[in-house]
């Protein structure tokens, strides 16, 4: 489902003396449907960078990243947008929303973008928010004022609203208590069971061993810091 071959990435900082920083070189691996793969490595090894490259958020200088057959390294923006709407989900560490929009609508939005009727999308959003222990009295409020853990859970609910065939999870269990952590792990298990290909970053080792089938050490692909 997700297929990387000979992927490399460097940053050129034009306003800081044109410094070139090689971040990742020659990564190749594949994730099959129903499989969950963990990216590991020390802080700064490039785990999040690699994940953002797979999402098309960062440009990839060389190689191929195929998701469901589409090479996102060479795709037009509109194809990547369509891929993100239909196929590829991403739960980032931070929630980024239009201020003033109620939590329920924030969570339902990925489904509304897929033309799911409003009431059906809201039902699914309600179910997820309930499952993630967000009290109903908060659903009509914007999540911008919520606590860190609450925002994280809203972000997860939003990420799991649509049953994406491929998912990227950046520390989905960070800043969660034990009960909510279990809920998130079961959501991941469910996604795997329905055949989603998942790539995750988990600092929580117990969570990692619980849901992941394989680990890939990103440190192996990190060249010396500055070229």
């Amino acid at each position, binding site marked *: 489902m997700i297929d990387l071959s000979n992927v490399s990435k460097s940053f050129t900082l*034009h306003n800081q003396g044109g410094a070139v920083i090689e971040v990742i070189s020659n990564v190749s691996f594949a994730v099959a449907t129903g499989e969950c793969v963990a990216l590991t490595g020390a802080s700064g090894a490039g785990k999040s960078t690699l994940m953002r490259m797979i999402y098309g958020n*960062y*440009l990839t200088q060389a190689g191929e990243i195929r998701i469901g057959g589409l090479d996102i390294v060479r795709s037009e*923006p*509109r194809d990547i947008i369509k891929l993100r709407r239909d196929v590829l989900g991403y739960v980032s560490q931070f929630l980024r929303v*239009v201020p003033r929009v109620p939590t329920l609508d924030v969570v339902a939005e990925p489904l509304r*973008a897929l033309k799911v009727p409003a009431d059906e999308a809201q039902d699914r959003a309600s179910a997820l928010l309930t499952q993630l222990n967000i009290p109903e009295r908060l659903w009509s409020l914007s999540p911008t004022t919520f606590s860190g853990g609450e925002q994280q859970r809203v972000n997860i609910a939003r990420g799991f609203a649509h049953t994406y065939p491929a998912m990227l999870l950046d520390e989905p269990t960070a800043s969660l208590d034990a009960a909510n952590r279990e809920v998130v792990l079961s959501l991941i298990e469910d996604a795997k069971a329905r055949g989603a290909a998942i790539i995750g970053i988990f600092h929580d080792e117990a969570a990692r061993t619980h849901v992941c089938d394989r680990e890939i050490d990103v440190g192996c692909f990190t060249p010396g810091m500055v070229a």
Partner: protein
Amino acid sequence: MTPLLSVQGITKRYGTHIGCADVSFDLYPGEVMGIVGESGSGKSTLLNCMAGHLTPDAGQVVFDTRTDGPHDTITMSEPERRMLGRTDWAFVHQHARDGLRIGVSAGGNVGERLMAVGERNYGDIREKAKDWLGRVEIDASRVDDRPTTFSGGMQQRLQIARNLVTGPRLVFMDEPTGGLDVSVQARLLDLLRGLVRDMGLSAIIVTHDLAVVRLLADRLMVMKTGRVVEAGLTDQVLDDPQHAYSQLLVSSVLQV
């Protein structure tokens, strides 16, 4: 799929000074494109060339018309282009007063565009006007009030209602949230996003506010001294800018 708008080699000079130079891109149905750059980078010149307010020195602006398919709007006859401006196109000005008829009631402002496309039944027009005031969150009881009695944010929302009532397929926006305070901006962004999604609109938004394009635009073009220096997915250009100028632009935003 046929692009809704295909812009090819648009160039506009003011004497020896370059307004914008050799800009080309395709916009597909349902896409929202942002154009950012500092003051004087040519983004408004480009927008006005595309919308038919300025005549470019070179280039084509091909629009996929409902009846005859793709047509170059620059060589189109003036009546044809004006008709397009009343039906399939809409233009939201930065200053609501430039886009409103300030001496006419709110309902009249919305109804006028309907009459321009041939609606004649007063009752129908008034109902549609009220419906649109509701959609942009203006109380229907204000339908007979003049925009001069409205706040800046309400005037801007009225301008949007006036523009969208005829169901356009392409909306040009010039700094639509400029000059509004942040709470009103957020409300307007939420409104615009909903309208774009529910009506399947395509839009081109010129702004210098990177937060606005991040929330509204699928794609982004960065302009500097009349030229496009970088283009791509909005979040990619903002999070991993490649050109020196885009990097400077993104890193210059103050963190709140």
